[in-house]
């Protein structure tokens, strides 16, 4: 497996960091992979765009930051504006239709999904938007299995909310296009 | 002048979270200064470190953003060396009363003419929600996951015990009286302490089941009462607000001028 470098970006309240951690934890604990996750801290993180880096690999990961992401997820226009140029040529750029308008020329495969609106429509609770995104993400990238994500969610999420999260995850999975990787 | 004449607009919108009380206090401070018609060049703001202390960057005065807890020590140097300046020290509750508690009681004791504004949100905001010396017994914080066993200071009592000559308390809900109190505190010739209860919806609010900043303001409205009100008698748990102490005492810089007179005679 090639080392996969991922950036999740968006605004503070969107659960970017949580989804990054879930993804990386799923890879680490429930697949035979290595993953590291980190994020930008501090006042910047509070005000502007928030960013979380994940690297997944079957080898040891030394350098823990993402320089040229193979996969970039942008969930706000500000995040898109700030990070789109970082993507590695030929990478995948996943955005949400409601929040992001593509304005730049990016040498990447664009996947634009209407996750925000679908979550509102199908589940009604914007709080699981990030899990829906994660569903789409794993369906597109095939980096980790749905069951691995579910194992993490089962550990982390209070019982009463588990179904809602599962639904969101599956919603995301069904929305994902089948990319040739 | 308008509010915008007192701020450094290019840094707005500011860094504070939606609904953060610190912004209301900043607004109150600006309006008090506006009313007093102080010259901008005559005002020095000295803050420590914390969400609160970020106020320095936004105000168009001489601003000194120092280190955590030591604002009043720096302010003492500024004031004693240039007594004609108006020195105001906005501080967080952690800043002023945890790491900085000693400087506060000593500034109070000396009665040096500095206005200390305690932006009290009962939590360490900047570092993410640890308990502070004003987090209530039984409340929650990231370092009090089982509930807090520390007894909080009553800042008013402590300031009075230290000998402060002006001590007041107000809240971000009571904006108009907050402005009046800040005006009086600045005009007071001596050390003045104004505790302003200020909501941190992000950490204190979230940890302690407040749904929003609005709910926290309602709490301030419903759980405080003017000093000596009847309500207080019926409900002793109400927190009093208003000016607790306002007395004349020799001011430190004035006293030092006397020393200079004595000393120069001796020469």
């Amino acid at each position, binding site marked *: 497996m090639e080392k996969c470098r991922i950036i999740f970006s968006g605004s503070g309240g969107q659960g970017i960091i949580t989804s990054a951690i879930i993804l990386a934890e799923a890879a680490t604990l429930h697949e035979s992979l290595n993953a590291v996750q980190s994020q930008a801290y501090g006042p910047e993180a509070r005000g502007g765009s928030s960013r979380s880096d994940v690297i997944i690999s079957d080898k040891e990961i030394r350098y823990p930051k993402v320089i040229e992401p193979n996969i970039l997820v942008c969930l706000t226009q500000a995040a898109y504006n700030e990070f789109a140029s970082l993507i590695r040529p030929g990478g995948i750029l996943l955005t949400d239709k409601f929040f992001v308008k593509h304005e730049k020329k990016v040498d990447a495969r664009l996947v634009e999904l209407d996750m925000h609106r679908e979550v509102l429509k199908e589940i009604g609770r914007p709080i699981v938007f990030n899990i829906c995104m994660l569903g789409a993400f794993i369906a597109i990238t095939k980096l980790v299995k749905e069951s691995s994500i579910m194992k993490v969610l089962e550990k982390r999420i209070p019982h009463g909310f588990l179904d809602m999260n599962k639904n969101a995850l599956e919603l995301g999975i069904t929305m994902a296009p089948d990319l040739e990787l | 002048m308008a*509010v915008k004449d007192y701020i450094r607009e290019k840094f707005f*919108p500011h860094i504070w*979270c939606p*609904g953060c009380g610190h912004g209301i206090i900043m607004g109150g401070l600006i309006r008090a200064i506006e009313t007093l018609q102080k010259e901008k060049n005559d005002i020095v703001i000295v803050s420590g470190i914390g969400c609160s202390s970020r106020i320095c960057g936004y105000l168009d005065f001489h601003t000194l953003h120092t280190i955590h807890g030591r604002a009043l020590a720096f302010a003492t140097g500024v004031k004693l060396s240039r007594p004609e300046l108006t020195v105001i020290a906005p501080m967080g509750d952690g800043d002023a009363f945890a790491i900085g508690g000693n400087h506060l009681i000593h500034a109070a004791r000396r009665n040096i003419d500095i206005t200390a504004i305690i932006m009290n949100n009962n939590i360490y905001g900047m570092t993410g929600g640890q308990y502070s010396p004003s987090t209530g017994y039984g409340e929650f914080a990231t370092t009090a996951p089982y509930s807090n066993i520390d007894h909080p200071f009553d800042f008013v009592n402590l300031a009075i015990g230290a000998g402060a000559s002006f001590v007041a308390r107000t809240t971000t809900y009571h904006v108009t009286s907050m402005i009046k109190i800040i005006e009086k505190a600045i005009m007071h010739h001596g050390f003045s302490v104004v505790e302003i209860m200020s909501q941190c*919806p992000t950490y204190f609010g979230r940890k302690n089941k407040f749904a*929003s*900043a609005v709910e926290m303001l309602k709490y301030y409205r419903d759980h405080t009462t003017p000093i000596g009100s009847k309500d207080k008698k019926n409900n002793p748990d109400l927190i009093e607000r208003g000016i607790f102490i306002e007395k004349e005492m020799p001011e430190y810089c004035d006293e030092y001028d006397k020393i200079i007179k004595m000393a120069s005679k001796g020469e």
Partner: protein
Amino acid sequence: MTKKKKMKPNIKREWCKGCGICVEFCPEDALIMDEMEKAVLAYPDKCTGCMLCELRCPDLAIELV
């Protein structure tokens, strides 16, 4: 506070963070939150120019003009 009585709040949308404080505590219920979570003066006629929204806005986003 040299403002005159007849003034009405002007809300700087870029500074408003949507906390809802002005809306909740306007004595005349003259303000509402819009779908973008920004405050707007929905009922200018109700507004008495009491300034409370300006004074309570944590983001200095309101100015009575």
